[in-house]
Structure formats: structure tokens, C-alpha cells
């Protein structure tokens, strides 16, 4: 459907920035080296053949035993070319950092905050990297596979000694 995007990527980035590409159910995807995440996105937005001007989604997947442990997943769409692509970038547990995409697509702001909140991936250069869903007192990142399923961190509970 959008093989042109993968072709353009392989044409432009030849120094190992694109680790792997593929196509599944008519949707193209590419695995990008973490250090080149921002450069690849800049290119895909501005290139005349791709024009991926719409940020659709950014999220994260915890693969746990695999290395690198986390996958940051980005979905992009071109309003003009009517094509879409999915990008992956692997992030390790020891150094869970990746460049922010807020300067490229401002819509990435809250999505990166969500991925930070729930998975603990730090987006370097993000203008306001705070928790967005959980409360500031919350400790840890609840969608990590090693976060205990039964663990609760309540802010308030009834005082057993109080007469209501």
C-alpha cells in the first residue's frame, strides 16, 4: 500500500539507520535505530514523496525477556498521499531514553507523557515530561510487565477509627 515510504527510507538512510522493514496485512512497518529516531521522523514528514504530516499514535510495548526490552511504536499518516506507516524503535531497560518528537509533531506531547507514565521511557527534549494519567505520588510504571498485578497505591482510604 505504501511501499514508496519504505523505498524512500532505504534510499535516504543507508548507514544502518533502518534495521528492518516489512509489510503485514497491507501495512508497512520499519524498525529504526534509536539514535536516528528523530532524523527519520523529520525526513518522513518533510520528504515530498512521503509527506507523513499527521501524527496518529505513539505508544510503547514491553517485550520483557527480549532485548531491547521496550518497543516505542509510532503510527503516521499522510493526509495528502493517503498512506500510512508504522515505525518501531527498541529501547533498553538500562537506558530507557529516546528523542522526543514534539518538535516534529506537537501532537506527540501527551502521547509521550503517557508512554513515560505507564512504561517509564524518557523522551529526551520533551518540554513537559510529567505523569499524565497516574497521580504524581505514584511510584513505578504500572504497565511494565514486572509491575505486580495486585499492587495498589491508594491516595486515600477510610479511617477505621472515624465515625462517619
Amino acid at each position, binding site marked *: 500500500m505504501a511501499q514508496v515510504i519504505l523505498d524512500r527510507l532505504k534510499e535516504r538512510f543507508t548507514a544502518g539507520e533502518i534495521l528492518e522493514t516489512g509489510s503485514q496485512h497491507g501495512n508497512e512497518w520499519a524498525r529504526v535505530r534509536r539514535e536516528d529516531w528523530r532524523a527519520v521522523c523529520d525526513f518522513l514528514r518533510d520528504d515530498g514523496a512521503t509527506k507523513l504530516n499527521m501524527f496518529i499514535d505513539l505508544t510503547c510495548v514491553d517485550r520483557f525477556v527480549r532485548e531491547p526490552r521496550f518497543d516505542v511504536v509510532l503510527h503516521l499518516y499522510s493526509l495528502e498521499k493517503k498512506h500510512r506507516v508504522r515505525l518501531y524503535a527498541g529501547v533498553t531497560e538500562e537506558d530507557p531514553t529516546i528523542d522526543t518528537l514534539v518538535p516534529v509533531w506537537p501532537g506527540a506531547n501527551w502521547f509521550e507523557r503517557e508512554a513515560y507514565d505507564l512504561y517509564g521511557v524518557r523522551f529526551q527534549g520533551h518540554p513537559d515530561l510529567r505523569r499524565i*494519567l497516574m497521580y504524581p505520588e505514584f511510584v513505578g510504571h504500572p504497565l511494565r510487565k514486572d509491575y505486580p*498485578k495486585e499492587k495498589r497505591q491508594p491516595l*486515600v*482510604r*477510610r479511617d477505621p477509627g472515624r*465515625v462517619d
Partner: protein
Amino acid sequence: MGFEFHTTQLKAATNWARKFSLFQYPFVTACCGMEFMASAAPKYDLARFGAEFPRFSPRQADCLVIVGTITERQAPALRRIYDQMCEPKWVIAFGVCASTGGFYQNYSVTPGADQIIPVDVYIPGCPPRPEQVLDGLMMLMDRIQRGEGHSQITIESEKGYDVPLASIKPLQKGG
């Protein structure tokens, strides 16, 4: 005939008045809100039970209706709203999420509003049918008439006769 009269206790009369004039505070957080609207709209018509008056300030409300999921993040706000309500006050947990957390058993959802505040009547269902809501409301009205409830102020003194409202005290826990 000419002269008719009717005797009652002040307690019974006060509770009767209270149960037919519930001002609700709808704390609506989730999809149960649609069913709450259906219960309040003409077809099922909560107004028949004197509970038609939603007040959007807790200071004017008697009955806190918790409609929907309570997250841990929201729990302090719910506690504060409950604390702002004047006595006497009652609480209805509307739907399984408000009652027990429902199918949300995870890091973010409070397992039941009664972890935060006392609850008088639990209405199960996901969401509950309006008939269940009316049933729950009538159960609450029965409790009010009997003078029961977590926060129901008793107007029976230790001496066993009715006392002025100014001197009433809350029931002890479990009373």
C-alpha cells in the same frame, strides 16, 4: 365528625419528610450516567419519589449518588465532596464499579467507593436497569424511615423521648 386528629412521633414525621425530599448530588464519572439519566427522565421518573432535584453543590445535597468508576486519583475528590455535605446525608453506590470496582481489578481503580466513604445502598448491574435504581432508592427510603444508615442522625435521646434537632449526635459506628 367535626374534629379529626392524627398522632405520630416527631421521629417518624421527620424521617418521613426526609425520605420524600432527597436532594441528590450525582457524582457521575462513567457510562452508568446514561442509565442514571434514564432513571431521572420521565419514563422511569425518580421525581415520583421526591428525589427529582439534582443539586450540583454538595452543600445543598442530602444523597450522594456515586455513578460510575472511582479511580484512585479521583478518590480524594470524592472524599472531599462527601465531607462537604451537611448532615443528615446518605450515599448510594450506583453500579458494580462504584460498589466493588467491578471488572476493573487493576492499579488505577478503587475497589469500591466504600473504601473511601460509607455507603448505604449498593445497586448492582453494569449498568443497572432503571427498575433496579428505583428499587435501590426505595430501599434507601425505607432505611431513612427506620432511622438507619451510616450517617443517619438519631433523634432519640438516651432518655427515650424526642429532643430538639440542635442537640442530636451521630450514631456510633455500626449503629
